[in-house]
Structure formats: structure tokens, C-alpha cells
């Protein structure tokens, strides 16, 4: 280990590893330095200059986020000089800003507003620049609203889209006074390569990038006595929602959330986890079918690996950028869309409700799901399968609007028919979860035995490494699967599209080695989705991940094929996995898209 460097901050001594910034050193002392362009997920840009501090012997102020701590430094974070400079910088940002906070979606949750409030910027020394009046708001995307008049040009979104997602749909354009965040030729977000993943929204400190919200639409449906409003909640929502109410990251709030949804007036509260289990049966069967065709040599055209298709951000990404790999995608819809299709068919029929009067709402950690719900092909029920998609954040807003005291709500359980789930579904919310759930089922189908991992926990596919791999050898399979005897199933898991790209760009001979690949568009999987509570950071995502695996361990059933309601669904309605009916309702096809 290298020698640590010692410095003082506001007179207090602190030691840090060489290479750590002044900001990190101050954090160690619990001294808060305001920041805007800095984000723990991203490379350091040092362009907002809000974090400037005084460093002895330096006649200028230095940016705490971008300046390495050095031996013997003497830093002051709160001198008159620093405060004056900081005030000026916030005033400058505000002079360039459409600061109508009371009409802003981010009101109360905006980092710029927060710093202005902390500094008590009560007057504006400088003239307003008003150049934002020339800007138009881009509300063409079903997922994201981009409002340049609220942008402080911290470039967090651009770095997010490049470093985490490798999409580069957003860029910094022009220079000087004209510099702004732009898509290709300033086209609407809906016309470019953007995947709607919402990571830029999650990382934007202001109201410049926000989700397109459907809160009023949902309130209207809830108020309409002729409508039967059903809601589904995705696996990752229950480990994030609590943060919106001041609970520690990683607090599980499943029961409270269900209660809250009932109190908001939803007629039936059901669980996307149910269709997550269903996905495993459909996708697992598809995988086995493809394995049979290719390994047993029935059909040389069948493509391996099979790539998971639960993440609509990932789907749009591959449609734009890797059309040559499209045939590898599983044809399964995402759990949200499977649920939607069943809600207005199976559920409606079982409950004897006219599907026309059903409003199907989903609560998702994701903004891409808003886009997915609107894809033209997503109406297998004869109606729009999912009518409104709300993010975790929008649900929190509704709960607050309804005046519910979330912390003291009692816990309750999901409604029946499509409300039951297993631990395998719970882990869909974490990167690697779909893979693990699939392996739990597939291995057992093939061998008649449980996966050979302690307590069913397939740890090699867990964790936050960008790309993870696992190999499981099939031994002594059941007679039907004899051709798999001795075959090593190779799997890869990637999260964050920048990692997905690495897998997709593998040369064919390496790519084709795999049998099954799971890809989630967002860092950490859905638990780090673009609709989850802000802020996000590696640490917060880790805590949510721990909660997800705890949820799994706490479930009485932990394998998708054990889900009694899913078994019932097949027995009473679908027949068997990948049946004709299942194909009609639960599978989909993909679209070729332009590369830019």
C-alpha cells in the first residue's frame, strides 16, 4: 500500500489514499462541500465550479472534486472568499436559468434549488440572460421530457449516456454562450438512438431532464367509477420506494406499498413478480427448445446464445445498434407486458370484468417501460395491454399527494390470481437475477435435481461487476435431455449498456460460445433503473441489491416453476409454456431501427 497523504481541512487533519480528491477527503471528515457536476457514478469533469475551496499557497480557488489531495495541503471550505465565489456561481447559473421553481417538476427535489436555498440567494446581482426563452421543450418522447431552459450544463447526462450506457444519444453541442446539451441535430429524443432508459434523468440535478409523468391520467382513472383499475408492481420498486420517504436505502417496503396502492384507490393490486415467474417458464422453455435444436443438431439455423428480453431499454438499443444480433433475442415480452396482456384477457375473464373497462397501470423502476407500453405491437389483448406506466418516483408523488404517512402504514398482501410469486421473481430486480432464476428452473427441468448451489444462491452471476460469467455442467440429465449430458452451459450477464456493447462486439467465435446471456440496460439492473428514487450511487444500488436477495431468501417458494398461480394459469388458460396461446399473448417481435 502506498503512503497516505495527510492534509488539513478547516484545521482538521485527515489522511487519504493518494489520488483521492479534496472532496473525498472532506467527506471523510463529514464536511459537506456543495457540488453540481460531480456524481459518484461518473468521471470527474469539474465544470460547474460550485465546489471551489481555498487552498493555502494557491492564489486561485480550486475545485474540490477535481483536485487531488496532496501532502501538507491546507484547505478552507468556508472562508469569506469561498462563500462569495460560490454565491456568484449560483447567481450566474440562475441568471441563465428558467427559475420558475413553483411550476417545475423538480420543485423540492432539485440540487440547484437546494444549494440556492442553503446559500440563501435572496437577490440576484446580475441581469437575467433569458436566452432560455428561445428554447422549446422536447416532450415528444413517451418517457422523457427534455427542457433546456432548466439545464445548467453540468454534462452529467452526457457523461451518463456515454460512460454508463455507451449510447451517446446526448452530446454537448456548440461552444461559448451557445453551448448546450443536444441530440443529433437537436432532433426530438424520440427520433434518435435514445433507449429511454432514463439514466440521464436519474443523474440530472435539475428539472432539465425528467420522466414524462402520467400521474393526472391515473388519478382520473381512479376517480372514474366505470373503470376497474388494476396495478402491477415491478420487483425493484419495493426495495427503492422507501427512499422517497426518508427510509434508508435497501429498506423493503412491499407490504406498505400494497397498502398504499389500495388506499390510493386501485381496485386490484397485483404483482409483476407473478409474470416474472411466468417469464422464466416461457423463456426457459424457449431456451431449452433452442438448445435442443442446436446442440442436438436438429436445426442448424437456430441461434445461440439466447439473449434475455426483459429490459426495454436494452431492446431498443439492440434494435438500433446490433441488428445482426436481433435473432438471438428471446421472443418473450417483458414481465410488464406479459402482465398487461393477461390482465385484459385471463384476469378479465376469470373475474368476469369487461376488458374495456379495465385500466391497467404498472409501477416500474423504469422509464423505458413507458415507451414499451406504447409500442404498436403491445396490444395482444385487443386493447392497449398496459395503459399507464408510472415510475417509482411518480408513485411516491401520488402517495404524498394523497397525504398518506407512508412510514406508519400497515402491511398487506397482494390480491389473488396474479399476485403470487417466488424468490426467483424477486431477484429479477437485480442484475443477474433473470439468469439465476432461469438456471434454477432450467437445471431442474433438465436433471430433475435442484441447481448445485448452496441454498439455491447462484453467486457467480451476482454482484456489480459489469460483465459476469458462469458455467454449469449438466450431469446425469433426465432421459429426454440426454443430449445435454456433459454439456457445460455457459452464461454471461451484463448490466449498463456500455457493458452490453462489450458483449455484442465480441467476435462471433467468442460470442457463440455462450448459451444464455442476460442483459439489463441499467447499472445494477432494474434496482438502478431510470425511474428509481434519486439520488443513485454505487453504494445505494448495493444496498438495494442486498434487499432484493434478502427478499428472495425470505420467500417460502424460490423457484418459478413452483408458483401455484402460474401453474393454475397454465392449467386453466394457456395450456403449456410456449403454447400457441402463450405465443399470442406473451411473445413479441422486434423492429429494425436507424443507427443514429
Amino acid at each position, binding site marked *: 500500500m502506498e503512503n497516505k497523504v495527510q492534509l488539513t481541512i478547516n484545521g482538521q487533519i485527515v489522511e487519504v489514499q493518494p489520488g483521492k480528491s479534496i472532496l473525498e477527503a472532506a467527506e471523510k471528515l463529514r464536511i459537506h462541500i456543495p457540488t453540481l457536476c460531480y456524481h459518484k457514478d461518473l468521471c470527474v469533469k469539474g465544470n460547474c465550479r460550485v465546489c471551489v475551496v481555498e487552498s493555502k499557497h494557491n492564489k486561485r480557488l480550486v475545485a474540490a472534486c477535481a483536485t487531488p489531495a496532496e501532502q501538507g495541503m491546507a484547505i478552507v471550505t468556508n472562508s469569506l472568499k469561498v462563500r462569495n465565489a460560490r454565491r456568484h456561481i449560483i447567481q450566474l447559473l440562475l441568471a*441563465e436559468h428558467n427559475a420558475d421553481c413553483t411550476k417545475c417538476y423538480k420543485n423540492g427535489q432539485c440540487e440547484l434549488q437546494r444549494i440556492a436555498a442553503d446559500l440563501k440567494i435572496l437577490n440576484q446581482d446580475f441581469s437575467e440572460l433569458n436566452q432560455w426563452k428561445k428554447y422549446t421543450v422536447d416532450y415528444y418522447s413517451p418517457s422523457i421530457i427534455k427542457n433546456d431552459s432548466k439545464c445548467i450544463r453540468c454534462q452529467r447526462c452526457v457523461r451518463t449516456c456515454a460512460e454508463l450506457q455507451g449510447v451517446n444519444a446526448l452530446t454537448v453541442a456548440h461552444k461559448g*454562450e451557445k453551448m448546450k446539451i443536444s441530440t443529433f441535430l437537436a432532433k426530438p429524443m424520440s427520433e434518435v438512438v435514445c433507449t429511454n432508459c432514463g439514466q440521464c434523468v436519474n443523474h440530472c440535478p435539475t428539472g432539465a431532464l425528467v420522466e414524462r409523468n402520467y400521474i393526472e391520467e391515473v388519478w382520473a382513472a381512479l376517480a372514474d367509477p366505470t373503470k376497474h383499475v388494476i396495478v402491477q408492481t415491478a420487483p425493484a420498486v419495493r426495495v427503492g420506494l422507501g427512499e422517497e420517504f426518508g427510509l434508508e436505502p435497501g429498506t423493503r417496503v412491499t407490504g406498505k406499498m400494497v397498502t398504499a396502492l389500495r388506499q390510493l384507490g386501485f381496485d386490484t393490486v397485483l404483482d409483476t413478480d407473478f409474470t416474472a415467474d411466468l417469464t422464466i417458464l416461457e423463456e426457459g422453455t424457449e431456451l431449452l427448445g433452442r438448445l435442443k435444436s442446436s446442440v442436438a443438431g436438429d436445426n442448424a439455423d437456430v441461434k445461440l446464445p439466447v439473449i434475455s428480453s426483459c429490459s426495454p431499454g436494452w431492446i431498443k438499443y439492440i434494435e438500433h445498434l446490433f441488428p445482426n444480433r436481433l435473432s438471438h433475442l428471446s421472443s418473450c415480452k417483458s414481465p410488464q407486458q406479459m402482465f398487461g396482456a393477461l390482465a385484459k384477457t385471463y384476469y378479465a375473464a376469470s373475474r368476469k370484468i369487461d376488458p374495456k373497462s379495465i385500466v391497467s397501470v404498472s409501477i416500474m423502476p423504469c422509464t423505458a417501460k413507458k415507451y414499451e407500453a406504447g409500442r404498436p405491437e403491445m396490444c395482444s389483448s385487443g386493447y392497449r395491454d398496459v395503459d399507464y406506466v408510472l415510475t417509482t418516483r411518480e408513485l411516491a408523488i401520488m402517495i404524498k399527494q394523497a397525504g398518506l404517512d407512508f412510514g406508519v402504514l400497515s402491511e398487506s398482501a397482494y390480491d389473488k390470481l396474479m399476485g403470487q410469486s417466488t424468490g426467483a421473481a424477486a431477484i429479477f430486480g437485480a442484475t443477474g437475477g433473470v439468469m439465476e432464476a432461469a438456471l434454477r428452473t432450467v437445471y431442474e427441468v433438465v436433471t430433475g435435481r435442484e441447481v448445485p448451489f448452496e441454498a439455491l444462491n447462484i453467486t457467480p452471476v451476482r454482484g456489480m461487476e459489469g460483465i459476469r460469467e458462469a458455467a454449469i455442467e449438466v450431469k446425469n440429465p433426465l432421459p429426454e435431455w440426454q443430449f445435454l449430458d456433459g454439456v457445460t452451459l455457459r452464461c454471461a450477464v451484463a448490466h449498463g449498456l456500455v457493458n452490453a456493447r462489450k458483449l455484442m462486439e465480441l467476435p462471433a467465435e467468442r460470442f457463440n460460445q455462450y448459451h444464455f446471456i442476460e442483459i439489463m440496460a441499467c447499472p445494477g439492473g432494474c434496482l438502478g433503473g431510470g425511474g428509481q428514487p434519486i439520488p443513485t450511487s454505487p453504494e445505494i444500488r448495493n444496498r438495494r441489491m442486498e434487499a432484493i436477495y434478502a427478499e428472495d431468501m425470505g420467500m417460502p417458494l424460490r423457484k418459478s416453476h413452483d408458483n401455484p398461480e402460474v401453474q393454475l394459469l397454465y392449467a386453466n388458460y394457456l395450456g403449456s409454456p410456449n403454447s400457441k396461446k402463450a405465443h399470442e399473448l406473451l411473445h413479441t417481435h422486434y423492429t429494425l431501427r436507424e443507427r443514429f
Partner: protein
Amino acid sequence: MEQQLLKRIDLIFNDENDWQEILDQTLAHDNTYIINALVSSELKGRGGAGFPTGLKWKLTSEAPGIEKYMICNADEGEPGTFKDREILSRVSFKVLVAMAVCARVIGAKEGIIYLRGEYKYLVPQLNKTIAEFGAYCGRTGLDFNVRIFLGSGAYICGEETALFESLEGHRGEPRNKPPFPTDYGFRGMPTVVNNVETLVHAYTIFKYGAARFKELGVASSRGTKLFSVSGDTPIAGIYELELGMSLSQFVEEFGDGDTKAVQVGGASGFLVPRKKFDETTIGFQGRLTGVSLPTGGSMMLFNSSRSMYNVLNNYLDFFREESCGQCTPCRVGCQILHKGIEEVKRGERNAKYLQTLLLLTETMQLTAKCGLGQSVANSFSSIVENFWEEMIY
């Protein structure tokens, strides 16, 4: 500070066509000798920041790196500066020799001339020279190649870290410093960036020796400097002068008899009003310019017919366009300053607002990410403070 009489010198453009000899003779010395010569000559960079050239080469030679690079900064974008163009069109061999020597000293095999797009017409001739030079290097077994990289109209790319970004195919947004180019420059490798003129002075030192170079100029400002003289002067052009003269001498020589103020160092430099001509020395430690003579020896003269308000307005228009736009104090600050002086001029704001703006330039100087935003204060405060009346009426 020490001053001396204005003296015209002819070292830079006198071309005895002996570059091959000078190259061979210099390379016959070891690296330490060359670095020591530069260090003892006290040569400071002519690109603006005035960093000691010998030290820069030394640091880069000592920095660890698989590759190293030698970059000649020919982005010359500072308003009122045109000497690098002249050097490149007349004595480019000298520049190449110094680049090759530097490359040997630091361990670089590749040299790049970052030439501003506005000087594209220099390329054919320059490429010819480079080819001839390359052929000679080939014959003498020196493993060094030079290429030209053209800019495309962005003043900020003259800032060395923005220059790297541009070379790497990105927007020319300056990087955080540290790390400094001597450790982490082009492609993340140790890199020397030198101004065109700095390299020619290095050549002079190789040819005549450090002692001879040091005889010129005054303490802390050694040698000569090329001055780009423009504005209200009957004899606009490029002049090589010894450092250390007073501004009043300079004005006597170049002025039109009615000089009201001189902008020293381009738009990022300072405006010196007539009453301060005597006390201002032209060198790196001029009293008025504080630490360094900013940017490259541009001298713009203004006579009494000129409105200093218009001058400042023109500079601020330049900065608000040419700022890279990434950092708050510079991007927004430049706009506020520009708008602000117009508002005061039009009477929409009272003169006290100028005081507010002066405070803002202090913040810009303290907090901007790079030299551009930091130096807007120079011209702003020197013009506003000295020509307060002109700003208002």
C-alpha cells in the same frame, strides 16, 4: 523593476541556412547538457503562461510514459497576435530543429504542429519543409517524425489541454490541471507543448549559447521577444525587441503621436492607459501585469479617437463566443459582462453596476477552469477602472 532602452534585434528571422549544422551540433551534446543550457538561459515560454522552458523539458524527460510527444503550439488565436505565422512562413526550419532536439531530450518520436485552421494556406509550404527536414533526419538516423494537425476555428484550442482534446478528436474543452501535460498530456502521455516562438528562441540558444541569450533582456525576462504591433500605428508589423523596455519608449517608437492606451498581450492581456506608460515595463514581471506578460506579445495601440467602450465590447463579444462554454464562471460570466456594459451604456443600469461586474471578474479569475475565463478580468478591470467615464457616457 529593471528597465532598459528599446532595442531592435534580428535573431529570429536572420536565416543563415545552417540548420543542419545546428541540429547536428546540438544533438552531439547529451540531454543533460541541453536541458542545462535551456535552464541557464532562463528562457520562458512565449505562448502566454511564461513557464520556464528548460524545466518543462526536464520534467517531461523524467516523467514515466511508454510514449512521449512534442507539440508545437501554432494555434495563435489571441487577437492582435500574428508572429507565429510569420515564423512558420519564414524560418520554419528553426522550429523543426528545436522540436527534434526536444523530442530527443524527452524521448519522443512524434512531433505535431497544431496549426490553426485560419492558417491553412501555410500547409503546402510547411509540408515541403517537413519532408525535407524528415529526409535529413532519416539520413542522420534521427527517429523523429513531424505532422501537421489543423484546427478548425476555435481559439480555446490554443490552451494546451484543450489542444490535446482537439488532437484526440474531441471538443476542445480544457481539462483539469493537475495533472499537468508534462505528466499527462496527449493520449495521456508526458508531453511538451511549446509555442512556435519559444522553439525559435531555443534554436537561438542552441546556436549562440545560453550566455549570449542571457545577455539580452533584463532579470527574469531574458532574451528577445517578437511583438505583433497593430492598431493606431504608422508602422504596424512584427518586431523583434529586447525585453525590458518601458512602455513609453515603445509608444514613442511605434505610436502615432496620439496614443491613448496600449493593449498589452491581446484581449486576455491588460490595457495600459497613457498615464501608466512610464511605469510599465514590457517583460514577464511587469509591475502592472503582475506575474506574467500575458499571451504572446500582442501590442495594440489606440489613439484618442477610439472609444475604450467599443474596445471592451469587442473583446467581450470575442470571449462569449470563444469560451468553450463548459464552466459556469466563464460561460455565464462573459455573457453577463458583455450584457452588463451595454446596459450601463444604454442607461438601463446605473454606473454602480460596473462595480458589481468588477467583483464578478474577481470570481471569474478565482474560479474559472482555465486561463481563458481567468484572464477576462485582465482587460475588463484595466479598461473599466481606467476609462470609467467612457463606459458610462
